[in-house]
């Protein structure tokens, strides 16, 4: 994987020479004495001193300031044969050039951050993708992105009658006095309207006005003036009206007449002059896009010219010529657009800017994956480009669902808030607590508009490269070149969009008798699928575009093609390929290859194919849900739509209720933890109402609003907790609470608190438990949440088993079936946790032998404990943990003896000579000097703290899976390893005479070996402990 991936995105380099053929530049070695460590600033200064071969500190400082040079990564610290320590810096060409430039001219070329900044400011490419690149704004007024010269025929009878006037060489523009910049002027006491004339040359204004009409934009005055300059008399620039008007005088005369009459006049502008003018304008003031336009126009003209010279032999030859000309033009446009490296994305709005940025992030992430995975890295770069586009398409598709009022947005976020509001309204609660629901609704509408804008921008997001293909596409369209489906901009992205957009449609389509019925052999269903695919793929991709061009017949054809293609996915499923996307892909690839398609086209097929396949899967799931709901497997489209909507709504409603419930429980539990009692100073209603009203505006914040609401109404929630209890009432609970409070004040109570008394000895806890059992409708979890603070109050922490026991007892007392107890989730095996619990009962069941019962119990025991392990493995997470040894050592010093820095830190004294008695020295350990409690054969320490942290974290990153496997599944719950860091990371001593060769003798050495011991923290949340890690010399 190229390490400059983030700095030079490969798409920028497309079609350009690889510039990495730099020759080897000798490294700079900054020498230091042993034990001398430099910070990055000092190191950079010394490095520059070395590179400039100077001792002049001012020069060094100048260079650093001018170039902005910084050492971002630590330099490797090495040793040469003589034992001299040095930092090695390997300069690149830029660095070298900057140094040379400074030596020769006294000016350093920018390096590091500064370089990037300057590149961005000067709009150079390539630009780093990870930073948000400034994207060109189109010039204002925006000139249309279209072929340079618009053909315009002159056929009016009022054309100038000069003998040398050839209408083909002129543009005709009808101008009226309104088209000019005018001003009022008083002359001889009379108000007069005059055309504003710059530099006394009215032709300038006519030109500007004419060009404004022709191109919707004005040219710079300096450019026009230059053209007119020296052409005062005889050069044909333009005519005004039916009379020739070339000279200033003629123009002024006709113009004056025009103003007086107030009529429109025909102006004729020389085509060749206008083209000259446009070229001059682009040369002087044009941006990159204008220049590209010019390039394309020239290149297309050249192609036209080339083909004009070829005389077709016959009709067949003529048609081939036409075809080659078309494809040559297309290739030229593509090549020029791509080579321009221009980012055509518009970013006028903040939302647009973030969409661009998001696209870049998606691209960077995808490319990183593609380049780092050996499976993909060898693919042709064009295919990789397509893959990036497809990924962006998936994101885009997701947002385009959002952007419509009918999108899932409607169902979820807003549905939730609307639901809450309508409940408030219908119950009249809003007035009672003082919420102005209209205000909230207004605030909501504002937010929805914002969200729509945002989603709109994101649904059109594209990478810089995609924007280029869009630009090439629109040019082709405007230039009247023929367009095939694969020429569509971001065809691959369309495949991605299709999945997200098509899901609801396909779901309904499949649900109304799609796959299920088709397997039974119904031809009708297959047709329905094809039609459905035509609706989705056809309308969204091809048809849309063809329709835009008013080419209905190709649109229908393309729709049919897409439909046929869409039919392949379910077909291949039915052929026994089992819905396997990979198999579908193989099918597309094989078919594509047979058809002689390019790699890119084949990939595009695969994307589309898979998108449809995924849609079908989702559709099948939807069908199952709907069928279950309606109690039959056939239904109409409308029925399916209604059912699907209801399912959405119910899910939203349930999850909203759960959320509210959860917040209630949290609120009461927090209150209990705070006060140790449910007793509360009830506030007067209005106060609560005011609080709620103030928070009402925040209702727009989606789910968070609910929490806010619950928190604001804390007193209310707390006061209502268990208010409806019948068996153990609030009064009984509060009485128990008071008894506990009183008891805790006695010496005996203090003893309780310190020792943690058995639960059964506290009848009042039993009362409390019964109270919470009854109040906690949400089951076991809620019960635990409530009992935790109650027990904490009496100094007790209960295990899950104890809670379960307590819960079961209370359930029995309250005559509730234990089957309602939701103890925990069932994992990968068939037995639920409740069943497993029952399995633990050794009593022999009916139809079971004594032996079988025993085995059942054994298995259940294993299952329970191993479930814990698998859960724990998951809880440790796939993401490698990062550690800082300093923090690790402090946190785990006492109980886990974490001692990396204490025994092997860079600050430990190396040599025993000269060290006061009782000092830990690295060398002394070889001899077992006090305070070391034994002699060792290998004793090393880290070179420095940053090397230590870096090496350990690198190791953790690379080996995280092995580490967490060991921590969880290794019976010692530890991970021990000896590894090579690939560079010197530590120094120390080994016993030269180990193995009985003689008396112990310490020999100095450097090492790249590292020993690491990692344990598992036994306390939630699970995390690794670096018990120790040190440079090691030995090992097997």
């Amino acid at each position, binding site marked *: 994987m190229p390490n400059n991936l983030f700095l030079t995105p490969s798409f920028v380099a497309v079609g350009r020479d690889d510039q990495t053929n730099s020759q080897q530049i000798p490294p700079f070695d900054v020498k230091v004495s042993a034990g001398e460590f430099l910070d990055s600033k000092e190191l950079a200064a010394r490095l520059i001193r070395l590179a400039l071969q100077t001792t002049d500190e001012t020069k060094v400082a100048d260079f650093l300031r001018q170039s902005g040079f910084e050492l971002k990564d630590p330099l490797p610290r090495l040793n040469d044969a003589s034992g001299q320590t040095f930092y090695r810096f390997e300069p690149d060409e830029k660095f070298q050039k900057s140094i040379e430039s400074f030596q020769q001219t006294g000016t350093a070329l920018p390096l590091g951050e500064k370089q990037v900044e300057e590149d961005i400011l000067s709009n150079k490419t390539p630009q780093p993708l990870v930073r948000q690149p400034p994207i060109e704004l189109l010039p204002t007024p925006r000139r249309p992105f279209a072929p340079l010269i618009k053909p315009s025929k002159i056929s009016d009878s009022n054309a100038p009658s000069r003998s040398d006037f050839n209408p083909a060489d002129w543009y005709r523009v009808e101008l009226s006095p309104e088209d000019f910049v005018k001003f009022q002027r008083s002359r001889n006491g009379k108000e007069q309207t005059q055309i504003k004339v710059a530099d006394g040359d009215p032709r300038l204004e006519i030109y500007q006005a004419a060009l404004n009409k022709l191109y919707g934009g004005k040219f710079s005055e300096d450019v026009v003036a230059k053209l007119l300059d020296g052409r005062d008399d005889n050069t044909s620039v333009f005519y005004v009206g039916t009379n020739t008007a070339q000279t200033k005088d003629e123009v002024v005369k006709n113009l004056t007449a025009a103003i007086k009459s107030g009529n429109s006049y025909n102006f004729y502008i020389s085509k060749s002059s206008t083209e000259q003018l446009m070229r001059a304008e682009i040369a002087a003031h044009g941006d990159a896009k204008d220049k590209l336009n010019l390039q394309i126009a020239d290149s297309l003209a050249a192609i036209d010219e080339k083909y004009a010279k070829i005389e077709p032999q016959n009709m067949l030859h003529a048609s081939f010529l036409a075809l080659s000309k078309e494809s040559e033009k297309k290739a030229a446009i593509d090549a020029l657009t791509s080579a321009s490296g221009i980012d055509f994305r518009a970013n006028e709005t903040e939302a647009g800017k973030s969409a661009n940025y998001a696209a870049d992030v998606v691209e960077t992430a995808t490319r990183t994956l593609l380049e780092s995975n050996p499976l993909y890295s060898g693919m042709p770069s064009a295919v990789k480009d397509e893959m990036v586009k497809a990924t962006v398409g998936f994101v885009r598709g997701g947002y385009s669902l959002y952007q419509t009022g009918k999108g899932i947005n409607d169902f979820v976020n807003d549905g*939730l808030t609307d639901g809450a509001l309508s409940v408030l309204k219908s119950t009249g609660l809003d007035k009672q607590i003082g919420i102005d629901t209209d205000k909230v609704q207004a605030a909501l509408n504002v937010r929805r508009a914002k969200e729509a804008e945002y989603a709109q921008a994101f649904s059109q997001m594209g990478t810089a490269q995609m924007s280029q293909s869009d630009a090439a596409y629109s040019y082709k369209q405007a230039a009247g070149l023929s367009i095939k489906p694969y020429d569509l901009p971001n065809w691959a992205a369309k495949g991605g969009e299709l999945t997200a957009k098509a899901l609801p449609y396909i779901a309904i389509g499949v649900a109304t008798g799609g796959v299920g019925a088709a397997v039974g052999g119904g031809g009708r269903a297959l047709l329905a699928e094809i039609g459905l695919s035509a609706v989705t793929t056809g309308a969204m991709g091809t048809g849309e575009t063809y329709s835009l061009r008013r080419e209905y017949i190709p649109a229908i054809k393309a729709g049919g093609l897409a439909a046929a293609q869409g039919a392949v996915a379910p077909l291949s499923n039915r052929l026994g390929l089992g819905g396997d996307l990979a198999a579908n892909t193989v099918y597309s690839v094989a078919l594509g290859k047979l058809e002689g398609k390019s790699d890119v086209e084949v990939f595009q097929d695969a994307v589309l194919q898979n998108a449809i396949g995924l849609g079908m899967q989702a559709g099948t799931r939807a069908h199952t849900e709907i069928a279950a709901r309606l109690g039959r497997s056939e239904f109409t489209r409308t029925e399916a739509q209604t059912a699907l909507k209801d399912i959405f709504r119910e899910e939203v409603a349930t999850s909203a209720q759960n959320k509210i419930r959860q917040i209630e429980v949290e609120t009461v539990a927090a209150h209990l933890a705070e006060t140790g009692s449910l007793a509360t100073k009830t506030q007067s209603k209005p106060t609560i109402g005011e609080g709620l009203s103030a928070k009402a505006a925040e209702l727009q914040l989606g789910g968070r609003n609910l929490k806010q609401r619950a928190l604001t109404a804390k007193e209310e929630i707390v006061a209502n907790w268990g208010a409806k209890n019948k068996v153990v009432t609030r009064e009984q609970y509060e009485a128990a609470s008071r008894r506990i409070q009183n008891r805790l004040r006695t010496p005996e109570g203090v003893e309780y608190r310190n020792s943690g008394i058995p639960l059964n000895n506290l009848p009042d806890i039993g009362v409390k438990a019964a109270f919470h059992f009854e109040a906690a409708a949400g089951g076991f979890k809620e019960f635990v949440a409530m009992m935790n603070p109650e027990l904490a109050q009496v100094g007790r922490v209960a295990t899950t088993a104890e809670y379960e026991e307590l819960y079961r007892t209370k359930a029995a007392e309250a005559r509730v079936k234990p089957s309602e107890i939701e103890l925990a989730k069932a994992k990968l095996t068939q037995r639920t946790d409740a069943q497993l619990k029952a399995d633990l009962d050794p009593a022999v069941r009916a139809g079971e032998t004594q032996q079988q019962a025993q085995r059942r119990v054994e298995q259940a025991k294993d299952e329970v404990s191993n479930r814990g392990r698998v859960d724990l493995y998951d809880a440790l997470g796939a993401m490698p943990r990062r550690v800082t040894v300093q923090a690790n050592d402090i946190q785990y010093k006492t109980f886990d003896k974490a001692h990396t820095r204490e025994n092997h830190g860079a600050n430990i004294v190396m040599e025993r000579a000269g060290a006061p008695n009782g000092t830990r020295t690295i060398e002394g350990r070889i001899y077992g000097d006090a305070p070391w409690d034994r002699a060792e054969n290998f004793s090393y320490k880290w070179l420095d703290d940053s090397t230590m942290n870096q090496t350990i974290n690198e190791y953790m990153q690379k080996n995280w899976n092995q580490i967490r496997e060991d921590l969880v599944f290794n019976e010692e719950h530890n991970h021990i390893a000896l590894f090579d860091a690939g560079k010197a990371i530590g120094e120390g001593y080994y016993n030269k005479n180990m193995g009985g060769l003689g008396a112990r003798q310490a020999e100095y050495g450097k090492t790249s070996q590292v020993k690491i011991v990692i344990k598992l923290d036994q306390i939630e949340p699970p995390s690794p402990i670096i018990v120790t890690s040190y440079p090691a010399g030995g090992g097997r």
Partner: protein
Amino acid sequence: MNNQESKPNDEKKGKKLAIFDVDHFALKEKYWSDDYNLKQADSLERLGAPQRVVDNLRNPKPTVEVVANFLSGIEYLGGWEEIRKGLRETVSYAPVGLIQNLKALEKLLATPQEKDVCAKLVAYDFNWSLDDPSDENAKAHLQKLAEMTREVLGELAPPKAE
């Protein structure tokens, strides 16, 4: 759209991990059995544990390697007293590993070994520089470790091999 996400495990925070919350004494006979690892492999495989873990459990390591690992894992502790403290702590949360290590160590000591196997184990893996680095002395050194482990395991120590 993800407002309904619940935050997991908050109520467990600060408590002992479930896998360490086990009554080891009730299970000691299971721990001692020779096919403990195989049974674990079956059970974990059913639960979808990583395949590598399952494979490792099914393929026993050579005795010397187990002992080397054991030594390597306690080498950093320091002198005998520190080692005893470390072992005691291990018993409280990971007795199975210790039982298996003890079994391997005793097996190694009970069977004749090639020359210098024990000396190398002590010098390299245990990183212990003995005054008398001979093989015999190293063996005695390992014997001392075995006895200490047995003593620390107490009631959990497996019955001595015949």
